């Protein structure tokens, strides 16, 4: 099943300069009870967005109308913790298509790539530049050019190349997913299975 293709994204961004943002913050476990993939955006960063009586925490960035856009910019080691894909679903469902950080946890990064959210890993200094630009002007736009593997801070000369393996890049650009690929090599898999020692 394909997902939205991702080529070039130009958008303002939401800054979250906290390190080690873990998947329990992105989506707390008590909201993992659904059997369908919908509504997870409502509980994105639930306990940072809302008090326990469900009133809004005004100091959290998602509750601050100054900042908006389809790019989330997080601190170092974003997405550590659980393998719950629900974390990536919540980010997607809330409206983000890209997460920028200086470092991502492995499984979270994979999960994002598997559902069409682009994780863009930049240097710590470039990340600092992004935060600085957004705090100077909340309307600052970032441009993510996947074919060129380039992230730029618009209206500045500041840009940086980012890494993505060419297979995943092709998938993201075309909106293909891995099962399409795996399914096409089913006979190879069957032959492999028949010789498997375990």
């Amino acid at each position: 099943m394909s997902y939205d293709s991702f080529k070039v994204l130009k958008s303002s961004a939401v800054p979250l300069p906290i390190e080690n943002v873990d998947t329990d913050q992105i989506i707390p476990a008590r909201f993992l009870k659904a059997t369908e993939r919908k509504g997870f955006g409502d509980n994105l960063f639930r306990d940072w967005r809302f008090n326990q009586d469900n009133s809004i925490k005004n100091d959290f960035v998602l509750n601050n109308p100054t900042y908006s856009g389809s790019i989330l910019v997080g601190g170092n080691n974003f997405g550590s913790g659980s393998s719950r894909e629900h974390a990536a679903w919540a980010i997607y469902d809330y409206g983000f298509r890209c997460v920028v950080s200086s470092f991502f946890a492995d499984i979270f990064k994979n999960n994002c790539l598997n559902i069409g959210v682009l994780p863009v890993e930049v240097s710590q200094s470039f990340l600092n530049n992004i935060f600085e630009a957004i705090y100077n002007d909340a309307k600052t736009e970032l441009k993510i050019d996947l074919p060129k593997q380039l992230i730029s801070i618009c209206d500045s000369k500041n840009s940086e190349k980012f890494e993505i393996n060419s297979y995943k890049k092709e998938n993201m650009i075309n909106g293909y997913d891995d099962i399409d690929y795996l399914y096409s090599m089913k006979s190879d898999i069957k032959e492999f299975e028949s010789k498997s020692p375990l």
Partner: protein
Amino acid sequence: MAKTLFDKVWDSHVVRRIKNGPDVLFIDRHMIHEVTSPVAFLGLKNRRVSVLYPERTFATADHNTPTKNQHLPVTDPESKNQLEALEKNANEYGISYWGLGHKKNGIVHVVGPEYGITQPGATIVCGDSHTSTHGAFGAIAFGIGTSEVEMVLATQCIMQPKPKKMRITIDGKLNNGVTPKDIALFIISKLTTSGATGYFVEYHGKVFRELSMEGRMTVCNLSIEMGARGGMIAPDCKTFEYIKNREFTPKGDDLLKTKKYWDTLYTDKGAKFDKEFFFKGSEIDPMITFGTNPGMGISITKSIPKAKDVDNGKLTYIKSLDYMGYKEGESMIGKPIDYVFIGSCTNGRIEDFRAFASIVSGRKRSKNVTAWLVPGSHKVMEAIKNEGLLEIFKDAEFELREPGCSACLAMNDDKIPPGKYAVSTSNRNFEGRQGPGARTLLASPLVAAAAAITGKITDPRSLI
């Protein structure tokens, strides 16, 4: 060329190598549970494909199950719906299903080894990051997302770039009162929660060789907490003794054939790792965490580090201490606690309950402490009863619950109330992990027992 154990197992499971892309990796064993599988089954239905090898997938209910009155219907409608979905999907596709109340039910990473599903040299995945546990048997085992659960169901393969290789060697002798949990918390405190991201870890050295299989499982379980994809320990006679005659382990001629493969499972002399760490067993003390990630751990006798001494993320560090209600420079010993949780895929095995019993035996639970003792499986629960531990717990005024993940992630009713302190043998101390506003202190079963008896953080060595 000299190969590492990890290389041998990984390379022998590659169905296809994609240039500048991931490997197509064949998966021997797949475990599923109620929380991360329903959307994968929906995906299969939408694509109109079936499960390719249902006999290679095993289902158990654990994350979202009550730990009291399991014989009664589940009251929370959403949890009930999720459990029913797992049962329905397992039945529809012919997958073995050990649901709530089944005698083989328990936490997925506890029952896998118990029934011999976990085997040396296997590739094992599950929609749960603590799948790394199974690396204790010399398997490549790691957590995957729901899209990948769907891939494995449909094709028995996933697509993964091969991780880099890290070796952590600990030689020497362990101090008194130091358990496998302390070893793992010590390593994570040295490497940080992202220190092994992008790597697969092999644990080498005398300290790991001397651990029991249960202890090795605790260490491998926590590999993910330093960011590693997984961790593994080469199989040895302890491993083969453990798996012998379990329900799903090969027997007779099959065993002889498989043993040939198993006998190749070691790291060749001279094999290269991308990164190496060396520690001494004597450096490790009983550990406790004071912050909101598992890397924020210290020897129980030490004080909370000062923000100025923290390398990165000072603001995040201060935010973390603020959440915990702690101040830099404070000593951990003597801090009052409210809850104790013993259980989870990290420390919910019989050896953990034996350790807990060794301290609470002949003593009484502190009146200020609420304690939840949750076995990892029915098999563990049976052993607790058969070995006489249940009597010890009752005499010390502890109550034993029924198996499940319970307060480790608090999806069920086992939630630590806001602001309360819990000494927990589980694996994560993230904000709100054990309930909104809950404050978690990760520790070993010995430290948990000492806290349960005294009502405060106590060096367990004073009670051994």
